[in-house]
């Protein structure tokens, strides 16, 4: 207990507290030149368009990527959960495979696949006639965020699929058999038996998927480094670049300011998560009341 508490305290609880403390400092990290600025960093953040754009991009990332991952992986999980599908373990393995790969390495591989100079994806799309000239997926501000998002969905799809499969396994097979005996079709079983039984899992799976989607640093940094013109800079990339890798020559690292950005974003995420849990609870409560009333 003691060693693990020390570990957790050092690398989890201490940093959490300290990042709040740092966020009140004006500090470059090189020296003891840190001095207290109170809410100065937060006041500056409020008027920093780069921060708010990165913030918006991260939210957009979650709002688009999470529903796609949830929906597609649910469909795949339902199909794979069919006992008659003998190859199901093989498919599960293949869908899960990208999950185990390293984000930063996959990012490099994908940036080659996306290449506008006869890269395989452009080649294939032109081959089947969807486009007639290559798209610069990562090099144009209009498409870079979406291209990165596609890779993120591909890489982490398997995690959400496994969540759904775990949830599906809690549905007793007898229920489905009973429904089939009563003459219910596949769709009806799904709609009236499996669906309602999966519902309680939806909140936690959404939360885990959303949380996982927010941690996209490796893929984004290795594919676009937030570019071009910050068009794919998500909040983690923003924090990293502000704190450790200022890109313009005269800029100095701003650890205090980056901490403030992290704290502000962290609080917002917590609020959203709490709101979501609260909404889920109240929906469940309303349903329970409706059922009692009936």
């Amino acid at each position, binding site marked *: 207990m003691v060693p693990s508490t020390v570990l957790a305290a050092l*690398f989890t609880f201490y940093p*959490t507290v300290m990042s709040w403390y740092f966020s009140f400092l004006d500090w470059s990290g090189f020296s003891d030149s840190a001095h207290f600025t109170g809410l100065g960093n937060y006041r500056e953040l409020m008027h920093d368009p780069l921060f708010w754009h990165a913030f918006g991009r991260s939210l957009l990332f979650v709002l688009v990527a999470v529903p796609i991952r949830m929906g597609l992986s649910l469909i795949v999980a339902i*199909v794979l959960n*069919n006992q008659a599908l003998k190859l199901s373990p093989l498919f599960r393995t293949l*869908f899960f495979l990208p999950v185990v790969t390293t984000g930063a390495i996959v990012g490099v591989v994908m940036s080659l696949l996306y290449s506008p100079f006869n890269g395989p994806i452009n080649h294939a799309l032109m*081959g089947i006639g969807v486009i007639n000239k290559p798209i610069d997926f990562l090099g144009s501000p209009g498409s870079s965020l979406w291209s990165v998002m596609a890779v993120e969905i591909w890489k982490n799809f398997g995690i959400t699929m496994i969540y759904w499969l*775990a949830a599906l396994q809690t549905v007793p097979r007898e229920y489905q058999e009973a429904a089939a005996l009563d003459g219910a079709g596949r769709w009806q079983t799904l709609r009236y038996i499996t669906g309602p039984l999966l519902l309680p899992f939806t909140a936690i799976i959404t939360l885990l998927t959303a949380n996982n989607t927010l941690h996209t640093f490796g893929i984004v940094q290795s594919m676009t480094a937030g570019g071009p013109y910050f068009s794919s800079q998500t909040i983690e990339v923003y924090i990293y670049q502000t704190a450790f890798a200022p890109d313009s020559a005269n800029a100095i690292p701003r650890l205090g300011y980056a901490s403030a950005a*992290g704290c502000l974003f962290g609080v917002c995420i917590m609020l959203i998560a709490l709101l979501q849990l609260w909404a889920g609870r109240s929906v469940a409560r309303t349903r329970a009341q409706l059922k009692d009333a009936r």
Partner: protein
Amino acid sequence: MTAVLERPPVRRTDPPKQRRRRRRGRIRIVVVSTVLLAVCGVWIYPLIWMVAVSLRDNAHVFTGVGLGTDVVHLDNYQRAWSDAHMGEYFLNTLLVTAGSIVITVFAVAMMGYVLGRYSFPGKRVVIALFAIVVFLPEGYTIIPVVDLLGRLHLDSSLWGLTLAESGGAHVVAVLLFAGYFSRLPKQLEEAAMLDGAGFVRTFFSVYLPLAKPVVAVTVILQFLHSWNDFLLPLVLTLTRPTLRTLSVGMYAFQGEEFTDWSGMMAAATIGLVPLIVLFLFLQRYFVEGVAGAVKQ
């Protein structure tokens, strides 16, 4: 299904309607399987392409969607392994991963043991704190972690990185251990105590050996985390290239030799193949580890 297939006479006595339905079901399975097979082919195409390109020479990297090569160029691997220092980075990654696995398993198992078998004031608070911490963005804590390692003078060796990778709250693993230990019978503890075993002895020689499946899951989760982590090693090795891990090395390779595509893909293959092989062999534990988050 197999039982049905082995007994054809029973099937013959089925009413025709049922027989038709069953045949339709079988056709459906074949169609679904074929579609899924095609989807899966596209799904893992990027990884296969990576391996294919790692065997080509640089002039033939971008030749459409094909996966073949005329001449197998193994020199790409040599370039990646020694010139791009992937060999060193491989060793670094291996050391950090192994070290952090050992530390994590003991730390997490003990924590789960205490949470699962003893009740103490503030237990609920500890669990709640853990649950909250899962959802903090990584960028949120990276600055204090780096600062802390600097102050402890651990940032100039692999030890710092190893410790930082083992830190962090392994909530899922802790809860898995706690759940597992709490289901074991109390008599074990009493018997150990009668035999004169203390707290530590009871844990190491009675409980930990019983928890092998959970240990396996924890090892896998930590393996994935340490091997694949990017932000932390990147920041910690910004000024110390010799300590880079594979993911950081790959990133640096891309930045330095940005036209050596086949060398890049050879490096990527070096980084990913061990993971994939391990996954294929220990799949069950990978899947259990991931699913554990939902089951709790």
